[in-house]
């Protein structure tokens, strides 16, 4: 177990470095973050600056003028290490990171640690709610389908689950928002957080949007595994003990059938931390996904990298948790 944990920690660290470095390197390619630091004058090239210095070119603004715009650009670059190469900047970033300094946004000067503290909990709550709804639907559904495998209900539910799997979540999101919030006004159309109840209400629709597809996925996996499990001897044994079908399905067959679901659950949870962005976008939820998209599109590299790091770490951590859940589900894993 200790070795296992150690390997996981090593993996975590490696993933962290690989992912953040890739993000760093690719962000170098994304636009010019200078714009957010100095504004339109960011478009002035170095050649032009040199020409201004030599007196060959007029300064940026002919009347009134801001003499020294070029100096301003240089200063902004230096202050934010934009004049350095990717490895160097990455090094600086990592060192600051481990000092607990995530840096500040180029756009609004917000502390990135504050942004994460604001955004992450919302996303986590959304994902947890979505997963709970998904499992809440998928488990009874999967059990019911497997209980009478290949019979009427199972056949209908197979079609149903495929249908759910095939609805793009953005389409579902728009449709649910349109009907449940705007037309019927059952749920608020806008994210709000005046206490947990208002937030819960605001998160139900987006969570449901995410959950329906997930539920179908889980149902398929659970059904398949349950059908396999139901052919196990211990299930016959349990029946021979005179236990009710219900008792057997939930107390005996369910747990050993959860492996695939748990695996996918882990992968999904990780992916959802940053991947729920379309749904977050539709419902204007101030989560990590929304902020990531915004940060990418507004050229705010420190925020993008920090959030990608958060997502990657979250992914690894969740998968670590999934391993622990395996151990809970199957005592044989514990002793292995």
């Amino acid at each position, binding site marked *: 177990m200790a070795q296992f944990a150690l390997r996981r920690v090593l993996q975590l660290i490696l993933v962290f470095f690989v992912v953040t470095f890739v993000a760093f390197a690719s962000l170098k390619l994304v636009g010019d973050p200078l714009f957010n630091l100095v504004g339109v004058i960011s478009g002035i090239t170095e050649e032009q600056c040199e020409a201004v210095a030599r007196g060959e070119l007029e300064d940026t603004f002919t009347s009134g003028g801001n003499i020294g715009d070029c100096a301003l650009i240089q200063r902004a670059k230096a202050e934010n290490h934009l004049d350095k190469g990717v490895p160097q900047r990455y090094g600086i970033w990592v060192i600051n990171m481990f000092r607990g300094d995530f840096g500040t946004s180029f756009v609004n000067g917000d502390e990135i640690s504050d942004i994460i503290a604001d955004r992450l909990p919302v996303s986590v709550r959304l994902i947890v709610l979505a997963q709970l709804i998904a499992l809440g639907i998928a488990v009874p559904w999967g059990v019911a389908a497997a209980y*009478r495998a290949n019979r009427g209900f199972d056949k209908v539910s197979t079609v149903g689950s495929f249908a759910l799997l095939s609805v793009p979540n953005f389409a579902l999101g728009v449709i649910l928002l349109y009907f449940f919030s705007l037309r019927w006004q059952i749920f608020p159309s806008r994210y709000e957080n005046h206490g947990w109840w208002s937030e819960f209400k605001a998160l139900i629709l987006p969570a449901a949007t995410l959950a329906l597809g997930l539920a179908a996925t889980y149902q398929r996996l659970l059904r398949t595994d349950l059908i396999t499990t139901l052919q*196990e*001897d*211990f299930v*016959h*044994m*349990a*029946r*021979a*003990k*005179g*236990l*009710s079908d219900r*008792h057997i399905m939930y*107390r*005996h067959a369910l*747990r*050993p059938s959860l492996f695939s679901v748990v695996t996918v659950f882990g992968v999904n949870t990780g992916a959802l931390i940053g991947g729920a962005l379309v749904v977050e976008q539709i419902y204007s939820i101030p989560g990590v996904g929304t902020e990531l998209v915004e940060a990418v599109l507004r050229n705010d590299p420190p925020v993008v990298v920090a959030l990608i790091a958060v997502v990657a770490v979250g992914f690894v951590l969740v998968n670590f948790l999934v391993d622990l859940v395996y151990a809970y*589900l*199957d*005592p*044989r894993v514990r*002793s292995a």
Partner: protein
Amino acid sequence: MPDNSHSVKQLSVQNLSVRFPTVRGTVCAVNGVSFELSQGASLGIVGESGSGKSVTARTLMNLLPRSAEVSGGVEFEGADVRRLARERVKHFWGVKMAMIFQDPMTSLNPVKKCGTQISETLRYHLKRDRKTARHEGIDLLNLVGIPEPKKRFDQYPHELSGGLRQRVVIAMALACDPSLLIADEPTTAVDVTVQKHLLDLLDRLRKERGMSLILITHDLGVARRRCDEIAVMYAGRIVERGKPEDLFEDPRHPYTDALLRSMPRLNTPIHSRLEAIGGPPPELINPTEQCSFAPRCTLAQADCLQSVPQLSGVIGMREIACFYPANTKRGRRALAKNRARGKTAAGLQMSARRHTSG
């Protein structure tokens, strides 16, 4: 204590048939099986896989899949078992009637503690509270001869050896003190040494508790010492039934005979070949009206292919279903006839090396 006398009829199975409709046709797993069992007696049901012995047991235990079509009557201690099944009566199976399965490795839920699996029955059927159930569970483990029962109670199945696991399974089955225990190949998956211990245990428990036992096995040897009576099944029918001594000394059905020949014995010469039963396994899907063993039977004659021989009394408790019983004159004649032809009426080649059953 229940009445220990064998005379009280406890279980009666009348003309039981089980069919499974499938895409390829109807599988006739059990065809008109009848037998009775007295209180405290033990019955061995012997047959190869697919002979319908397990399906019979599962019918008794209401373990058949929903698709199964069952006919015939099963009466247990005066109750119509099939009606109980239809009415989804609780606290009957596992309480009055219990069953243990072949493989202790798989018949225990790997993700639940052994103790939980035992006490679960107590709590479910007898509504014991957690603590009482635990005590009784540990007592049961003790009863089936598991050392350190308290420790074992909290262990997972994978932490136990095969023998111990089967003891746990037995303890589980015994939890509610059933009056009939069905053991489906209880020793197949364990070592020979363990096998004996387990059979002894079952025997002891049966006697101590006045419990009836149906021992299902493919191994005639296992059934021999432990049963008051043995029924040999083939292709969903009982083909021969009798006391173990009679059966072993004087097998009448060619199938029983062949089974015995395929069994290693102390008195067979060390290097002699054990006989495998030749021919194709029985056709269970849409079987034709004939003796189902006929295609493999060295004694098979034309009339074996015309109709199904019914189980009928020979002497005393003994019953067989055969037109040309082995070790009888009719049988010997039939064999000689086939041998002369070089093949049986069903077309089975009479191998030269084959020992005769004449």
